Protein backbone atom coordinates (compact mmCIF):
# COMPACT_ATOMS: atom_id res chain seq x y z
CA UNK A 1 0.00 0.00 0.00
CA UNK A 2 1.33 3.44 -0.76
CA UNK A 3 0.07 6.93 -1.34
CA UNK A 4 1.05 9.12 -4.26
CA UNK A 5 1.83 12.79 -3.65
CA UNK A 6 -1.20 13.66 -5.76
CA UNK A 7 -3.46 11.72 -3.38
CA UNK A 8 -1.70 13.04 -0.29
CA UNK A 9 -1.85 16.71 -1.23
CA UNK A 10 -5.62 16.48 -1.60
CA UNK A 11 -6.14 15.15 1.93
CA UNK A 12 -7.80 17.06 4.74
CA UNK A 13 -7.21 16.16 8.38
CA UNK A 14 -10.48 14.20 8.40
CA UNK A 15 -9.49 12.37 5.19
CA UNK A 16 -6.35 11.17 6.95
CA UNK A 17 -8.19 10.18 10.15
CA UNK A 18 -10.85 8.35 8.15
CA UNK A 19 -8.32 6.64 5.88
CA UNK A 20 -6.40 5.37 8.90
CA UNK A 21 -9.62 4.25 10.55
CA UNK A 22 -10.68 2.27 7.45
CA UNK A 23 -7.16 0.85 7.07
CA UNK A 24 -6.96 2.38 3.59
CA UNK A 25 -3.40 3.43 4.38
CA UNK A 26 -1.07 3.71 7.36
CA UNK A 27 0.43 6.77 9.02
CA UNK A 28 3.79 5.65 7.59
CA UNK A 29 2.26 5.81 4.10
CA UNK A 30 1.18 9.37 4.83
CA UNK A 31 4.62 10.29 6.16
CA UNK A 32 6.34 8.82 3.10
CA UNK A 33 3.99 10.62 0.72
CA UNK A 34 4.64 13.89 2.58
CA UNK A 35 8.41 13.33 2.38
CA UNK A 36 8.17 12.60 -1.36
CA UNK A 37 6.03 15.70 -1.94
CA UNK A 38 8.52 17.85 -0.06
CA UNK A 39 11.37 16.33 -2.09
CA UNK A 40 9.70 17.23 -5.37
CA UNK A 41 8.65 20.78 -4.45
CA UNK A 42 10.80 22.22 -1.71
CA UNK A 43 14.35 22.72 -2.92
CA UNK A 44 13.76 23.91 -6.47
CA UNK A 45 10.45 25.68 -6.16
CA UNK A 46 8.95 26.82 -2.86
CA UNK A 47 11.71 27.01 -0.24
CA UNK A 48 9.31 26.89 2.72
CA UNK A 49 11.53 25.03 5.20
CA UNK A 50 14.61 25.95 7.18
CA UNK A 51 15.09 22.36 8.35
CA UNK A 52 13.43 19.03 7.65
CA UNK A 53 12.80 16.25 10.18
CA UNK A 54 11.77 13.18 8.12
CA UNK A 55 13.12 10.67 10.67
CA UNK A 56 11.03 12.22 13.43
CA UNK A 57 7.98 12.11 11.17
CA UNK A 58 8.47 8.42 10.36
CA UNK A 59 8.96 7.61 14.04
CA UNK A 60 5.80 9.50 15.00
CA UNK A 61 3.95 7.69 12.21
CA UNK A 62 5.16 4.36 13.60
CA UNK A 63 3.70 5.29 16.97
CA UNK A 64 0.34 6.17 15.42
CA UNK A 65 0.31 2.91 13.46
CA UNK A 66 1.18 1.01 16.64
CA UNK A 67 -1.83 2.52 18.39
CA UNK A 68 -4.08 1.69 15.45
CA UNK A 69 -2.78 -1.90 15.19
CA UNK A 70 -3.72 -2.44 18.81
CA UNK A 71 -7.31 -2.02 17.66
CA UNK A 72 -7.86 1.59 18.65
CA UNK A 73 -9.45 3.99 16.19
CA UNK A 74 -7.13 6.79 15.04
CA UNK A 75 -9.64 9.18 16.55
CA UNK A 76 -8.51 7.75 19.88
CA UNK A 77 -4.87 8.14 18.87
CA UNK A 78 -5.51 11.89 18.68
CA UNK A 79 -7.17 14.67 16.71
CA UNK A 80 -4.15 14.94 14.44
CA UNK A 81 -3.21 11.26 14.19
CA UNK A 82 -1.04 10.78 11.10
CA UNK A 83 -1.36 14.43 10.02
CA UNK A 84 1.85 15.99 8.60
CA UNK A 85 2.54 19.27 10.41
CA UNK A 86 5.22 21.95 10.21
CA UNK A 87 6.32 24.38 12.89
CA UNK A 88 7.41 27.95 12.33
CA UNK A 89 11.09 28.05 13.18
CA UNK A 90 10.56 30.24 16.23
CA UNK A 91 8.95 27.23 17.95
CA UNK A 92 11.12 24.86 19.95
CA UNK A 93 10.98 21.23 18.84
CA UNK A 94 13.32 18.86 20.68
CA UNK A 95 15.73 17.31 18.22
CA UNK A 96 15.70 20.33 15.92
CA UNK A 97 17.33 23.72 15.78
CA UNK A 98 15.19 26.79 16.45
CA UNK A 99 16.81 29.49 14.35
CA UNK A 100 14.18 32.27 14.15
CA UNK A 101 15.61 32.66 10.61
CA UNK A 102 18.47 34.59 12.21
CA UNK A 103 22.26 34.19 12.15
CA UNK A 104 21.95 34.91 15.85
CA UNK A 105 20.25 31.53 16.43
CA UNK A 106 21.62 29.56 13.47
CA UNK A 107 23.06 26.78 15.65
CA UNK A 108 20.61 26.86 18.56
CA UNK A 109 19.47 23.36 19.56
CA UNK A 110 15.98 23.34 21.08
CA UNK A 111 16.08 22.64 24.82
CA UNK A 112 12.33 21.99 25.23
CA UNK A 113 9.22 21.34 23.22
CA UNK A 114 7.03 24.42 22.94
CA UNK A 115 3.58 23.65 24.39
CA UNK A 116 1.93 24.03 20.96
CA UNK A 117 4.47 21.51 19.67
CA UNK A 118 4.10 18.98 22.49
CA UNK A 119 0.30 19.16 22.35
CA UNK A 120 0.09 18.63 18.59
CA UNK A 121 2.63 15.79 18.81
CA UNK A 122 0.60 14.22 21.61
CA UNK A 123 -2.41 14.44 19.27
CA UNK A 124 -0.52 12.25 16.79
CA UNK A 125 0.76 14.84 14.31
CA UNK A 126 3.82 13.98 12.19
CA UNK A 127 6.54 16.68 12.50
CA UNK A 128 7.88 17.26 8.96
CA UNK A 129 10.13 20.25 9.67
CA UNK A 130 10.61 23.86 10.68
CA UNK A 131 9.33 26.57 8.38
CA UNK A 132 10.86 29.82 7.19
CA UNK A 133 9.90 33.22 8.60
CA UNK A 134 10.99 36.82 8.62
CA UNK A 135 13.93 37.12 11.00
CA UNK A 136 12.52 36.92 14.54
CA UNK A 137 9.07 37.30 12.89
CA UNK A 138 9.71 40.98 12.06
CA UNK A 139 8.23 41.41 8.60
CA UNK A 140 5.35 40.84 6.22
CA UNK A 141 7.00 38.96 3.35
CA UNK A 142 9.43 36.38 4.80
CA UNK A 143 12.14 38.24 2.85
CA UNK A 144 14.09 39.23 5.96
CA UNK A 145 14.94 35.58 6.69
CA UNK A 146 18.72 35.27 6.98
CA UNK A 147 18.67 31.90 5.22
CA UNK A 148 16.37 31.77 2.21
CA UNK A 149 13.62 33.32 0.15
CA UNK A 150 10.28 31.52 0.28
CA UNK A 151 8.23 31.69 -2.92
CA UNK A 152 4.46 31.92 -3.16
CA UNK A 153 3.24 28.60 -4.62
CA UNK A 154 0.59 30.47 -6.67
CA UNK A 155 3.30 32.45 -8.47
CA UNK A 156 6.89 31.66 -7.61
CA UNK A 157 8.03 35.21 -8.42
CA UNK A 158 5.92 36.55 -5.55
CA UNK A 159 6.32 36.56 -1.77
CA UNK A 160 4.23 34.26 0.45
CA UNK A 161 3.55 37.08 2.91
CA UNK A 162 4.85 36.96 6.42
CA UNK A 163 6.12 36.56 8.89
CA UNK A 164 4.84 32.94 8.92
CA UNK A 165 5.38 32.70 5.15
CA UNK A 166 7.02 29.27 5.17
CA UNK A 167 4.07 27.70 6.99
CA UNK A 168 1.54 29.29 4.62
CA UNK A 169 3.48 28.30 1.48
CA UNK A 170 4.02 24.72 2.70
CA UNK A 171 0.27 24.24 3.23
CA UNK A 172 -0.73 25.96 -0.04
CA UNK A 173 1.70 23.76 -1.98
CA UNK A 174 0.42 20.57 -0.34
CA UNK A 175 3.74 19.72 1.30
CA UNK A 176 2.02 19.92 4.69
CA UNK A 177 -1.59 19.28 5.67
CA UNK A 178 -1.44 21.81 8.50
CA UNK A 179 1.23 24.11 9.94
CA UNK A 180 1.63 26.40 12.93
CA UNK A 181 2.50 30.06 12.89
CA UNK A 182 2.65 32.94 15.33
CA UNK A 183 0.85 36.24 14.85
CA UNK A 184 1.92 39.53 16.44
CA UNK A 185 0.40 41.95 13.90
CA UNK A 186 -0.95 39.69 11.16
CA UNK A 187 1.81 37.12 10.73
CA UNK A 188 -0.64 34.22 10.36
CA UNK A 189 -3.57 35.94 8.63
CA UNK A 190 -1.67 37.96 6.02
CA UNK A 191 0.41 35.04 4.64
CA UNK A 192 -2.72 32.84 4.68
CA UNK A 193 -4.40 35.50 2.56
CA UNK A 194 -1.40 35.78 0.19
CA UNK A 195 -1.19 31.98 -0.25
CA UNK A 196 -4.92 31.24 -0.49
CA UNK A 197 -5.21 29.08 2.63
CA UNK A 198 -7.06 29.42 5.94
CA UNK A 199 -5.04 31.03 8.75
CA UNK A 200 -6.35 31.60 12.25
CA UNK A 201 -5.10 33.77 15.10
CA UNK A 202 -7.14 32.78 18.14
CA UNK A 203 -8.03 35.26 20.87
CA UNK A 204 -4.93 36.23 22.90
CA UNK A 205 -4.71 33.63 25.68
CA UNK A 206 -6.21 30.64 23.82
CA UNK A 207 -2.92 28.90 22.95
CA UNK A 208 0.13 28.85 25.22
CA UNK A 209 3.21 30.64 23.87
CA UNK A 210 5.61 28.67 26.07
CA UNK A 211 8.62 27.66 24.00
CA UNK A 212 7.85 30.09 21.19
CA UNK A 213 10.53 32.78 20.89
CA UNK A 214 8.86 35.99 22.11
CA UNK A 215 8.50 39.07 19.89
CA UNK A 216 5.77 41.28 21.41
CA UNK A 217 4.57 39.57 24.55
CA UNK A 218 1.29 41.47 24.86
CA UNK A 219 0.50 40.79 21.16
CA UNK A 220 1.87 37.34 20.24
CA UNK A 221 -0.50 34.43 19.70
CA UNK A 222 0.04 30.97 18.17
CA UNK A 223 -2.35 29.60 15.57
CA UNK A 224 -2.75 27.16 12.67
CA UNK A 225 -2.80 27.14 8.88
CA UNK A 226 -4.85 24.62 6.90
CA UNK A 227 -6.60 24.19 3.57
CA UNK A 228 -10.04 24.20 5.24
CA UNK A 229 -11.74 25.82 8.20
CA UNK A 230 -12.32 22.36 9.68
CA UNK A 231 -8.58 21.53 9.57
CA UNK A 232 -7.74 24.79 11.29
CA UNK A 233 -10.42 24.18 13.94
CA UNK A 234 -9.22 20.62 14.66
CA UNK A 235 -5.64 21.85 15.02
CA UNK A 236 -6.74 24.60 17.42
CA UNK A 237 -8.73 22.07 19.45
CA UNK A 238 -5.56 19.97 19.75
CA UNK A 239 -3.47 22.78 21.26
CA UNK A 240 -5.72 25.28 23.09
CA UNK A 241 -6.04 25.60 26.84
CA UNK A 242 -4.29 26.63 30.02
CA UNK A 243 -0.60 25.96 30.50
CA UNK A 244 1.08 26.82 33.80
CA UNK A 245 4.16 27.88 31.83
CA UNK A 246 2.32 30.75 30.07
CA UNK A 247 0.44 32.77 32.66
CA UNK A 248 -1.65 34.49 29.95
CA UNK A 249 -3.07 31.18 28.71
CA UNK A 250 -6.69 30.55 29.69
CA UNK A 251 -8.93 27.57 30.30
CA UNK A 252 -10.49 27.03 26.88
CA UNK A 253 -12.77 24.15 25.93
CA UNK A 254 -11.71 22.54 22.65
CA UNK A 255 -14.96 23.29 20.83
CA UNK A 256 -13.59 24.89 17.66
CA UNK A 257 -14.49 21.96 15.43
CA UNK A 258 -17.94 21.76 17.03
CA UNK A 259 -18.48 25.39 15.99
CA UNK A 260 -17.48 24.53 12.43
CA UNK A 261 -20.04 21.74 12.35
CA UNK A 262 -22.66 24.17 13.69
CA UNK A 263 -21.81 26.59 10.87
CA UNK A 264 -22.06 23.83 8.29
CA UNK A 265 -25.36 22.44 9.60
CA UNK A 266 -27.19 25.50 10.84
CA UNK A 267 -25.65 28.28 8.78
CA UNK A 268 -25.56 31.90 9.86
CA UNK A 269 -29.16 33.01 9.29
CA UNK A 270 -29.94 35.90 11.60
CA UNK A 271 -26.35 36.51 12.67
CA UNK A 272 -25.23 40.15 12.77
CA UNK A 273 -22.17 40.90 10.68
CA UNK A 274 -20.37 44.22 11.08
CA UNK A 275 -18.61 46.13 8.31
CA UNK A 276 -16.61 49.36 8.52
CA UNK A 277 -17.14 51.02 5.12
CA UNK A 278 -14.41 53.60 5.58
CA UNK A 279 -11.89 50.73 5.73
CA UNK A 280 -12.23 50.34 1.97
CA UNK A 281 -10.92 53.91 1.60
CA UNK A 282 -7.77 53.05 3.58
CA UNK A 283 -4.43 53.68 1.83
CA UNK A 284 -3.43 51.04 -0.69
CA UNK A 285 -6.67 49.04 -0.87
CA UNK A 286 -6.75 47.68 -4.42
CA UNK A 287 -9.83 47.47 -6.64
CA UNK A 288 -9.59 43.68 -6.88
CA UNK A 289 -9.57 43.30 -3.09
CA UNK A 290 -12.55 45.65 -2.78
CA UNK A 291 -14.43 43.66 -5.45
CA UNK A 292 -13.78 40.28 -3.80
CA UNK A 293 -14.70 41.72 -0.40
CA UNK A 294 -18.01 43.13 -1.65
CA UNK A 295 -18.85 39.83 -3.29
CA UNK A 296 -18.20 38.05 0.00
CA UNK A 297 -20.56 40.48 1.76
CA UNK A 298 -23.23 39.63 -0.79
CA UNK A 299 -22.80 35.94 0.00
CA UNK A 300 -23.07 36.65 3.72
CA UNK A 301 -26.36 38.44 3.09
CA UNK A 302 -27.56 35.63 0.84
CA UNK A 303 -26.95 33.26 3.75
CA UNK A 304 -29.44 35.28 5.77
CA UNK A 305 -27.09 37.29 7.98
CA UNK A 306 -27.68 40.99 8.65
CA UNK A 307 -25.01 43.45 7.59
CA UNK A 308 -24.52 46.24 10.13
CA UNK A 309 -22.52 49.37 9.26
CA UNK A 310 -20.13 50.27 12.07
CA UNK A 311 -17.53 52.83 12.97
CA UNK A 312 -14.30 52.14 14.80
CA UNK A 313 -13.17 55.73 15.40
CA UNK A 314 -9.79 54.90 16.90
CA UNK A 315 -8.79 52.10 14.54
CA UNK A 316 -6.75 54.48 12.39
CA UNK A 317 -4.38 54.98 15.33
CA UNK A 318 -3.82 51.24 15.62
CA UNK A 319 -0.94 51.12 13.14
CA UNK A 320 1.01 53.80 14.95
CA UNK A 321 0.18 52.31 18.36
CA UNK A 322 1.46 48.97 17.08
CA UNK A 323 4.71 50.43 15.79
CA UNK A 324 5.25 51.94 19.22
CA UNK A 325 4.27 48.92 21.32
CA UNK A 326 5.77 46.22 19.06
CA UNK A 327 9.33 47.59 18.87
CA UNK A 328 9.34 48.42 22.60
CA UNK A 329 8.38 44.86 23.51
CA UNK A 330 10.78 43.46 20.90
CA UNK A 331 13.61 45.63 22.25
CA UNK A 332 12.95 44.16 25.69
CA UNK A 333 12.61 40.55 24.48
CA UNK A 334 15.71 40.71 22.26
CA UNK A 335 17.94 41.96 25.03
CA UNK A 336 18.29 38.29 26.03
CA UNK A 337 20.55 37.63 23.04
CA UNK A 338 23.75 38.37 24.86
CA UNK A 339 26.23 36.06 23.05
CA UNK A 340 27.04 34.34 26.34
CA UNK A 341 24.45 31.67 27.16
CA UNK A 342 23.50 30.88 23.56
CA UNK A 343 23.44 32.50 20.17
CA UNK A 344 26.01 33.96 17.80
CA UNK A 345 29.26 35.13 19.35
CA UNK A 346 32.32 36.72 17.74
CA UNK A 347 35.31 34.57 18.72
CA UNK A 348 37.94 37.27 19.21
CA UNK A 349 36.47 40.06 21.35
CA UNK A 350 38.83 41.36 24.00
CA UNK A 351 36.23 43.03 26.22
CA UNK A 352 32.70 42.13 27.24
CA UNK A 353 31.19 45.28 25.70
CA UNK A 354 32.97 44.59 22.41
CA UNK A 355 31.62 41.02 22.45
CA UNK A 356 28.05 42.24 23.00
CA UNK A 357 28.24 44.95 20.36
CA UNK A 358 29.90 42.97 17.59
CA UNK A 359 27.95 39.76 18.21
CA UNK A 360 24.62 41.58 18.10
CA UNK A 361 25.65 43.63 15.06
CA UNK A 362 26.74 40.53 13.13
CA UNK A 363 24.01 38.21 14.46
CA UNK A 364 20.99 40.46 13.80
CA UNK A 365 19.82 41.52 10.32
CA UNK A 366 18.91 45.11 9.31
CA UNK A 367 15.15 44.97 10.09
CA UNK A 368 15.82 43.50 13.54
CA UNK A 369 18.39 46.22 14.25
CA UNK A 370 15.94 48.90 13.05
CA UNK A 371 13.24 47.68 15.42
CA UNK A 372 15.59 47.29 18.39
CA UNK A 373 16.87 50.85 17.91
CA UNK A 374 13.34 52.15 17.46
CA UNK A 375 12.33 50.45 20.73
CA UNK A 376 15.43 51.84 22.46
CA UNK A 377 14.49 55.34 21.35
CA UNK A 378 10.78 55.04 22.20
CA UNK A 379 11.55 53.86 25.72
CA UNK A 380 14.15 56.54 26.38
CA UNK A 381 13.45 59.26 28.90
CA UNK A 382 11.14 62.00 27.53
CA UNK A 383 10.23 60.06 24.39
CA UNK A 384 8.46 57.49 26.58
CA UNK A 385 5.94 60.11 27.69
CA UNK A 386 5.27 61.31 24.14
CA UNK A 387 4.83 57.91 22.48
CA UNK A 388 4.95 54.82 24.68
CA UNK A 389 2.51 55.83 27.40
CA UNK A 390 0.01 57.44 24.97
CA UNK A 391 0.18 54.28 22.83
CA UNK A 392 -1.00 52.25 25.84
CA UNK A 393 -3.84 54.75 26.37
CA UNK A 394 -4.80 54.59 22.71
CA UNK A 395 -4.83 50.84 23.13
CA UNK A 396 -7.60 51.31 25.69
CA UNK A 397 -9.63 53.39 23.22
CA UNK A 398 -9.16 50.85 20.42
CA UNK A 399 -10.20 48.02 22.74
CA UNK A 400 -13.31 49.98 23.79
CA UNK A 401 -14.18 50.48 20.11
CA UNK A 402 -14.24 46.71 19.63
CA UNK A 403 -16.19 46.13 22.82
CA UNK A 404 -18.95 48.47 21.70
CA UNK A 405 -18.85 47.07 18.16
CA UNK A 406 -19.41 43.57 19.49
CA UNK A 407 -22.44 44.73 21.45
CA UNK A 408 -24.03 45.28 18.05
CA UNK A 409 -22.63 42.43 15.95
CA UNK A 410 -21.47 38.81 16.24
CA UNK A 411 -18.51 39.13 13.87
CA UNK A 412 -16.72 41.88 11.97
CA UNK A 413 -15.51 41.52 8.40
CA UNK A 414 -12.58 43.28 6.70
CA UNK A 415 -10.25 42.35 3.87
CA UNK A 416 -7.25 40.55 5.39
CA UNK A 417 -4.75 42.68 3.49
CA UNK A 418 -5.22 45.72 1.23
CA UNK A 419 -3.59 43.91 -1.69
CA UNK A 420 -2.61 40.47 -2.95
CA UNK A 421 0.92 39.05 -2.82
CA UNK A 422 3.58 41.37 -4.22
CA UNK A 423 6.70 40.39 -6.14
CA UNK A 424 9.87 39.33 -4.35
CA UNK A 425 11.94 42.51 -3.87
CA UNK A 426 9.07 44.83 -4.86
CA UNK A 427 8.55 46.48 -1.46
CA UNK A 428 11.78 47.63 0.15
CA UNK A 429 10.68 50.68 2.13
CA UNK A 430 9.81 49.65 5.73
CA UNK A 431 6.91 52.07 6.18
CA UNK A 432 5.26 50.84 2.95
CA UNK A 433 5.76 47.23 4.04
CA UNK A 434 4.06 48.02 7.35
CA UNK A 435 0.89 49.11 5.50
CA UNK A 436 0.21 45.55 4.32
CA UNK A 437 -0.94 44.82 7.88
CA UNK A 438 -3.37 47.73 8.43
CA UNK A 439 -6.39 45.44 8.80
CA UNK A 440 -4.76 42.77 10.96
CA UNK A 441 -2.80 44.90 13.43
CA UNK A 442 -5.78 46.41 15.31
CA UNK A 443 -6.89 42.89 16.28
CA UNK A 444 -3.61 42.17 18.05
CA UNK A 445 -3.86 45.51 19.82
CA UNK A 446 -7.32 44.58 21.14
CA UNK A 447 -6.50 40.88 21.60
CA UNK A 448 -9.45 39.46 19.63
CA UNK A 449 -9.37 36.42 17.36
CA UNK A 450 -9.22 36.73 13.58
CA UNK A 451 -9.29 34.26 10.70
CA UNK A 452 -8.35 34.73 7.06
CA UNK A 453 -10.61 32.84 4.64
CA UNK A 454 -9.79 32.58 0.92
CA UNK A 455 -12.49 34.31 -1.14
CA UNK A 456 -11.22 33.78 -4.66
CA UNK A 457 -8.58 35.24 -6.93
CA UNK A 458 -8.01 38.92 -7.63
CA UNK A 459 -9.36 39.99 -11.04
CA UNK A 460 -6.13 41.84 -11.87
CA UNK A 461 -3.33 39.87 -10.22
CA UNK A 462 -4.88 36.39 -10.35
CA UNK A 463 -3.59 35.91 -6.80
CA UNK A 464 -5.62 34.80 -3.77
CA UNK A 465 -7.64 37.34 -1.77
CA UNK A 466 -8.45 36.79 1.91
CA UNK A 467 -11.41 37.84 4.03
CA UNK A 468 -10.71 38.56 7.69
CA UNK A 469 -13.41 37.39 10.10
CA UNK A 470 -13.04 38.91 13.58
CA UNK A 471 -14.92 37.80 16.69
CA UNK A 472 -15.48 39.07 20.23
CA UNK A 473 -12.72 38.15 22.70
CA UNK A 474 -12.93 34.48 23.69
CA UNK A 475 -15.88 33.93 21.35
CA UNK A 476 -13.88 32.51 18.46
CA UNK A 477 -16.82 30.12 17.96
CA UNK A 478 -18.56 32.98 16.09
CA UNK A 479 -15.62 33.19 13.71
CA UNK A 480 -15.60 29.43 13.06
CA UNK A 481 -19.30 29.34 12.42
CA UNK A 482 -19.29 32.18 9.87
CA UNK A 483 -16.09 30.89 8.23
CA UNK A 484 -17.50 27.39 7.82
CA UNK A 485 -20.81 28.62 6.39
CA UNK A 486 -19.17 31.05 3.98
CA UNK A 487 -16.48 28.54 2.94
CA UNK A 488 -19.23 26.18 1.77
CA UNK A 489 -20.44 28.76 -0.77
CA UNK A 490 -17.06 28.93 -2.55
CA UNK A 491 -15.70 26.39 -4.95
CA UNK A 492 -12.07 27.48 -5.18
CA UNK A 493 -8.91 25.39 -5.04
CA UNK A 494 -6.80 25.63 -1.90
CA UNK A 495 -3.87 23.89 -3.49
CA UNK A 496 -1.86 26.18 -5.72
CA UNK A 497 -2.43 24.88 -9.28
CA UNK A 498 1.16 25.39 -10.43
CA UNK A 499 2.46 23.17 -7.68
CA UNK A 500 -0.26 20.63 -8.27
CA UNK A 501 1.08 20.23 -11.80
CA UNK A 502 4.65 19.88 -10.55
CA UNK A 503 3.70 17.25 -7.98
CA UNK A 504 2.07 15.15 -10.68
CA UNK A 505 5.31 14.88 -12.63
CA UNK A 506 7.44 11.70 -12.29
CA UNK A 507 9.60 11.12 -9.24
CA UNK A 508 6.63 11.40 -6.95
CA UNK A 509 6.48 7.78 -5.82
CA UNK A 510 6.89 7.28 -2.11
CA UNK A 511 10.00 5.35 -1.28
Amino acid at each position, binding site marked *: MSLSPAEYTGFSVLDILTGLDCRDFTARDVAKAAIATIESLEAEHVGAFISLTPEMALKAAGNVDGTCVSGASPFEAGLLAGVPIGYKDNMNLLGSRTTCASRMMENYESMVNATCVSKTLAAGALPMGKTNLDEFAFGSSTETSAFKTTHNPWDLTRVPGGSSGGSAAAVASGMLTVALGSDTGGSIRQPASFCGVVGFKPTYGVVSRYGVVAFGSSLDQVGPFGRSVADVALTTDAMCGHDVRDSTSQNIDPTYYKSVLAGQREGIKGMRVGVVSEYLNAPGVTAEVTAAFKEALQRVEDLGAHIVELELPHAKAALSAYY*VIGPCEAFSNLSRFDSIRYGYCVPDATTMTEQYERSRAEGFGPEVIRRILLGTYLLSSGVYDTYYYPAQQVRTLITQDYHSAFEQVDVLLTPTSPRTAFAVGEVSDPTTMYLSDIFTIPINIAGNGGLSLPIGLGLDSGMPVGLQIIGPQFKDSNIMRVAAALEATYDIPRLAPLVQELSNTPGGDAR
Partner: protein
Amino acid sequence: MHLTTEAVRELAFCARIELHDEELPALTRDLNAIMDSLEPITHFELDEVEPTYHPIAGLVNVTREDVAKPCLTQQEALSNAPFTQDGQFKIPPILADAGGTR
Protein backbone atom coordinates in the same frame (compact mmCIF):
# COMPACT_ATOMS: atom_id res chain seq x y z
CA MET B 1 13.54 65.42 12.44
CA HIS B 2 13.49 63.18 15.49
CA LEU B 3 16.97 61.69 15.43
CA THR B 4 20.41 62.87 14.31
CA THR B 5 23.08 60.38 13.25
CA GLU B 6 24.82 61.10 16.55
CA ALA B 7 21.64 60.20 18.45
CA VAL B 8 21.36 56.93 16.50
CA ARG B 9 24.96 56.13 17.40
CA GLU B 10 24.09 56.69 21.05
CA LEU B 11 20.99 54.44 20.80
CA ALA B 12 23.08 51.69 19.24
CA PHE B 13 25.47 51.89 22.16
CA CYS B 14 22.55 51.62 24.62
CA ALA B 15 21.27 48.55 22.73
CA ARG B 16 24.81 47.13 22.48
CA ILE B 17 24.83 46.95 18.69
CA GLU B 18 27.96 48.02 16.84
CA LEU B 19 27.28 50.39 13.94
CA HIS B 20 29.76 51.57 11.34
CA ASP B 21 29.81 55.19 10.18
CA GLU B 22 28.69 54.25 6.68
CA GLU B 23 25.53 52.52 8.07
CA LEU B 24 24.37 55.57 10.01
CA PRO B 25 22.85 57.86 7.35
CA ALA B 26 20.45 55.27 5.85
CA LEU B 27 19.46 53.94 9.27
CA THR B 28 18.85 57.45 10.58
CA ARG B 29 16.67 58.20 7.54
CA ASP B 30 14.63 54.98 8.04
CA LEU B 31 14.13 55.59 11.76
CA ASN B 32 13.00 59.18 11.17
CA ALA B 33 10.54 58.02 8.51
CA ILE B 34 9.10 55.46 10.92
CA MET B 35 8.90 58.07 13.70
CA ASP B 36 7.00 60.38 11.31
CA SER B 37 4.49 57.58 10.68
CA LEU B 38 3.89 57.30 14.46
CA GLU B 39 2.67 60.90 14.60
CA PRO B 40 -1.08 60.02 14.96
CA ILE B 41 -0.43 58.66 18.44
CA THR B 42 0.30 62.19 19.66
CA HIS B 43 -3.00 63.61 18.37
CA PHE B 44 -5.47 62.10 20.82
CA GLU B 45 -7.13 63.70 23.81
CA LEU B 46 -6.00 61.21 26.42
CA ASP B 47 -6.57 62.89 29.79
CA GLU B 48 -8.05 60.38 32.24
CA VAL B 49 -7.68 57.46 29.81
CA GLU B 50 -6.19 54.49 31.61
CA PRO B 51 -3.41 52.61 29.80
CA THR B 52 -3.85 48.98 28.64
CA TYR B 53 -0.72 46.86 28.89
CA HIS B 54 -2.16 43.52 27.77
CA PRO B 55 -5.45 42.37 26.26
CA ILE B 56 -6.91 40.20 29.02
CA ALA B 57 -9.08 42.44 31.18
CA GLY B 58 -8.92 41.65 34.87
CA LEU B 59 -5.79 39.51 34.63
CA VAL B 60 -3.31 40.86 37.15
CA ASN B 61 -0.49 38.80 38.62
CA VAL B 62 -0.47 35.06 38.14
CA THR B 63 1.67 33.13 40.56
CA ARG B 64 2.32 29.47 41.17
CA GLU B 65 3.04 27.66 44.36
CA ASP B 66 6.57 28.28 45.56
CA VAL B 67 7.69 24.70 45.01
CA ALA B 68 10.93 23.62 43.37
CA LYS B 69 10.51 21.89 40.01
CA PRO B 70 12.91 20.04 37.75
CA CYS B 71 14.94 22.32 35.50
CA LEU B 72 17.77 22.12 32.98
CA THR B 73 20.87 20.31 34.15
CA GLN B 74 24.15 22.21 34.22
CA GLN B 75 25.26 20.31 31.13
CA GLU B 76 22.03 21.16 29.27
CA ALA B 77 22.20 24.79 30.28
CA LEU B 78 25.75 25.04 28.89
CA SER B 79 25.08 23.04 25.74
CA ASN B 80 24.22 26.03 23.51
CA ALA B 81 26.88 28.36 24.92
CA PRO B 82 29.48 29.61 22.42
CA PHE B 83 32.29 29.33 24.97
CA THR B 84 32.50 27.39 28.22
CA GLN B 85 35.22 26.48 30.67
CA ASP B 86 35.14 24.25 33.77
CA GLY B 87 31.36 23.90 33.60
CA GLN B 88 30.77 27.66 33.36
CA PHE B 89 29.95 30.26 30.71
CA LYS B 90 33.17 31.86 29.51
CA ILE B 91 33.29 35.61 28.77
CA PRO B 92 36.04 38.14 28.04
CA PRO B 93 37.48 40.15 30.96
CA ILE B 94 35.02 42.67 32.40
CA LEU B 95 37.20 44.51 34.92
CA ALA B 96 39.50 45.91 32.25
CA ASP B 97 36.51 46.87 30.07
CA ALA B 98 36.65 50.58 29.33
CA GLY B 99 33.23 50.67 27.67
CA GLY B 100 33.69 49.18 24.22
CA THR B 101 33.59 50.96 20.92
CA ARG B 102 31.56 53.95 21.93
